[in-house]
Every structure is written in C-alpha cells, then in structure tokens.
C-alpha cells in the first residue's frame, strides 16, 4: 500500500475505493492536524478539523481537478474548517470553559515565551513552523501540503524564525540572535 503514489490513490478513491481514501487520510492526517493546531492552538480541536476536512474531501473528491494537488486541496479544506471552529469557539467563549492544553513535560518559562511568540506570528508563518516542527515534516512533504516550492517554504520559515527571535527579545530574551 505504501508504494502506491498519492496520484494513484486519488484516482482509485475517485472511483470509489474506500481503502485508497483512508490511506490518503493516514498520509495527510499529521500535516492537517499541524495546520489546524497552528490556527486553533488546540490539539483536540485540530484533530476535529482534520477529520471534518477528510469528510468534506470524501464527499467532494470528484471536484478535485488534479490528483497531484490533493495535499494542498485537502489542506485548504482543513484551514477553512479550523477557521470555522476558531470563530465558533470565540463566539461561544468555550475557550474559557475548556481546560487548557497541558504543557509538555519540562515546560518552563522559555517554553511559555516561545508559545506566546508563536501566537504573535501571522497565520501563514505559524502554519509553516507547525508543519516543520510538529511532526518533523521534510520540505518536500510541506511543499505537497502547502502547494508552494521548497524555496518558498525555506524563505517563509526563515522569516518566521527571525520574527520569533524578535518577539522573544521583546519578552526579555535579549540574547536570542539569528
């Protein structure tokens, strides 16, 4: 199964092959959760957004015009789902009622400052940081999801890191230099 290319899986899924579609979901679940997490700041909601995105993709797969754009297509659906969830959460103020996500073990002042700085990034910059560091995706994999060149990803990531360093310096980390 792993040997089958995304294009082949997409073509088989369009013809109604459920196993091919679930294989595509397995391949893209991590990146989609990373995208959702970058927008929502919540792992559980990010997983919901990713699963809803797959449901919409299953329903509208024949609309996909190019099999090689499945990654960026489903990522765009996920982004919309996550933004919708974010708006709904803000409206209903669930944020305050929902228990905050547990900080990873070893979290400290630096970790909190980095998280705060991440929130200060523009969405596209935060997204590429999450894709790169959430699941250790390669530039090639990120390119498949964002639909932009590896060079563009590198540029976006470098700008994001420079901005993060700047934000950290403002938070008192004077010695951060990039």
């Amino acid at each position, binding site marked *: 199964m792993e040997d089958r290319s995304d294009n082949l899986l997409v*073509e088989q*899924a*369009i*013809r*109604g*092959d*459920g196993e091919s*579609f*679930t294989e595509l*979901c*397995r391949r893209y*679940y*991590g990146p989609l*959760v990373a995208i959702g*997490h970058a927008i929502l700041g919540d*792992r559980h909601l990010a*997983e919901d957004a*990713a*699963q809803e995105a*797959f*449901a*919409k993709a*299953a*329903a509208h*797969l*024949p609309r*996909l*015009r*190019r099999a090689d754009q499945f990654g960026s297509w489903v990522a765009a659906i996920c982004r919309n789902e996550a933004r919708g969830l974010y708006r709904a959460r803000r409206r209903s103020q669930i944020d305050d009622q929902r228990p905050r996500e547990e900080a*990873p073990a*070893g*979290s400290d002042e*630096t*970790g909190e400052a*980095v*998280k705060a700085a*991440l929130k200060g990034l523009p969405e596209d910059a935060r997204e590429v*940081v*999450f894709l*790169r*560091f*959430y*699941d*250790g995706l390669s530039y090639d994999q990120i390119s498949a999801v964002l639909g932009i060149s590896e060079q563009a990803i590198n540029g976006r990531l470098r700008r994001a*890191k420079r901005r*993060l*360093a700047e934000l*950290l310096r403002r938070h008192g*980390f004077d*010695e*951060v*230099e*990039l």
Partner: protein
Amino acid sequence: MSEHKGEPWLDRQLRRAVGGDTPSFDAESWKRRHRDEYEALLARAGQSGRGRVRWVWGRRGAGLAVAAAVILAVGMFLTNEPRRTIPPEDLVAASPAEMMNMMSLRLAYEQGGFDGLDRQLLSTLDEFGPRSLGVPSWRLF
C-alpha cells in the same frame, strides 16, 4: 555561562513548544463518525464512467489536448475551404477599369493613407490617358 541562543536553540525550543506525539489517523472511528460521506465515496464505485470522463476532462493535459485538436480542426477547415467566388451580380465594380481602380485605391490607402490615395488617383488619371485600341471605351468605364 549561558547557552548561545542561536538558530539551533530556537529549533529545539520550537520542537518542545510545537511538537508532540505524532497524531495517528483512526480510520474505523472516522468511518463511523462520517458514515454518510464515506458511503457516498463508496457509492461511486458502482457509477458509470461519467465520473471518469469528468475526471479526465478536468485534467490539464486532457484540456490542452482538446484545445489543440480544436485549433487543428479549425485550421484544416480554413485551409481546405474552397475559395469563395462572388457571383457576377454581386460584383462591386462594373468594369475592369473600375475594378483596377478600386484595387489600386485600396492598396494605396493601406500603404500611404489619404496621401497615398491622392497620389494614386493622380497617377491613375495620368495612366488612363492613352487606351489600348483593342478595348472599346465602354469597357474601360
């Protein structure tokens, strides 16, 4: 001595802040939760080739091939079309002289605008002075 906080330091901090355990997709749970969408996908297995035609049509290569075929067909049609002949009653010029005059006037206009037209009119008048003996005067005008 404090650690140098360069790019490797920031990368480590980002991995700590962003990274977690790799999310794994639970296909069975997803299928149960989104039964309608999944069944809609499976239902396409029994459909006719219409979906496939639409899929092929939607691909860029197929679109280009169709566009190329249309251009080729139009080109062949235009090159093979028999030359249109104007029926005699539709002739816009009543005599050879008038016809020649119109053709030369049109060429003169295309090449030199109204100045060219003027020059051609003068030249035509000069040329039409002596006529061929074999051509009766009524054929000229």
